[in-house]
């Protein structure tokens, strides 16, 4: 799994060192994928269970992740990438399907970054409002929901960064 550019450097070493280097590469890829799997699953679960009911002057105000399409996209994208990571970890035929894994890795990275960015945009409006559009921030009414969403977003960012590192490492 050495790129043509690293290949010249790779060939300088003898066969034993080459085997060790390949093994280390496999171990690091495995570790990165496990971290990404954990982060994706945690982000999806934490966002999915964010639920709060607030009562202001006999007005019931209920906040759930399904209220906003971007939060729904965040949960779905992270669960899809989590399932994909699990499948790739358990797959025995990696050397035959390397083309498919490479393509799907890139697509999953795009899914993660786009879902994080979309959820972040809506969460920003929820926290700070948008005076030009007349949208008031809702975080002052539903603290717990806001905190849980923030936590899910942070973990989602970790998942996106780990997948980006995985993609860059397998170049």
């Amino acid at each position, binding site marked *: 799994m050495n*790129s*043509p550019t690293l*290949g010249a450097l790779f060939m300088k070493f003898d066969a034993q060192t080459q085997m060790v280097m390949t093994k280390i590469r*496999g171990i690091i890829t495995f570790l990165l994928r496990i971290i990404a799997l954990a982060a994706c699953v945690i982000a999806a679960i934490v966002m999915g269970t964010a639920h709060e009911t607030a009562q202001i002057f006999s007005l019931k105000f209920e906040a*759930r992740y399904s209220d906003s399409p971007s939060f729904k996209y965040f949960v779905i994208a992270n669960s899809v990438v989590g399932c994909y990571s699990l499948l790739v970890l358990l797959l025995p035929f990696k050397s035959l399907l390397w083309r498919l894994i490479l393509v799907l890795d890139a697509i999953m990275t795009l899914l993660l970054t*786009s879902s994080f960015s979309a959820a972040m945009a*809506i969460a920003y*409006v929820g926290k700070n409002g948008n005076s030009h559009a007349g*949208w008031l921030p809702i975080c002052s009414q539903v603290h717990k929901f806001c905190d849980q969403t923030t936590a899910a977003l942070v973990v989602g960012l970790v998942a996106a960064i780990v997948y*980006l590192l995985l993609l860059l490492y397998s170049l």
Partner: protein
Amino acid sequence: MASLGVEKAGFGYNSIGSSVRERKMLVIVLLRSLSLLATLAAALVMGLNKETKTFVVATVGTSSIKVTLTAKFQDTPANIFLVVACALATFHNILMLALEIFGKKLDANGNRFMLISILDIINLTVLSAGAASSAFMGELAKNGNTHAQWNKVCDKFEKFCNHGAGATLASFIGLALLLAVTLITNLRLRQATNNANGNASV
């Protein structure tokens, strides 16, 4: 073993056969120029997006009180991000095209392919983040959110919303084309490596 030096391994840009290089490069140049046009269009349309409208707020006797409101793209951070991300992707595509057309002999210490691939991937992720955030913010402006008491904006500023939607669509097209370019380059790299190594090592 000691004779297997840099020259013998023959990796790097200048080692792939020249006819294969020309054919594959034409496809990549075409896709990159299309992606360049798409992201440039998206950045321009969103960057020049502005609409001013006068609303009648109240009527006092015979005279009516008017309020002039302006919808600019800077009102939403997501739109700013879209403009910046598309500008970055456009600049990156221009640079890569110039490298391809004018800099055929440039081989940064054997690192040319790796540099191009890394830059492609980074710009791909930034562009995807910008496009997605702008798309979902546009959806919020179009449909509002009854749970959070956020009103629709697009029924009052139709031209602004239509231009924003067009810019987002163009950025998605640019993203898809850039993804195709990145995948073609990477697959070709790995194929060349596997052929040179003689085994399909992952």
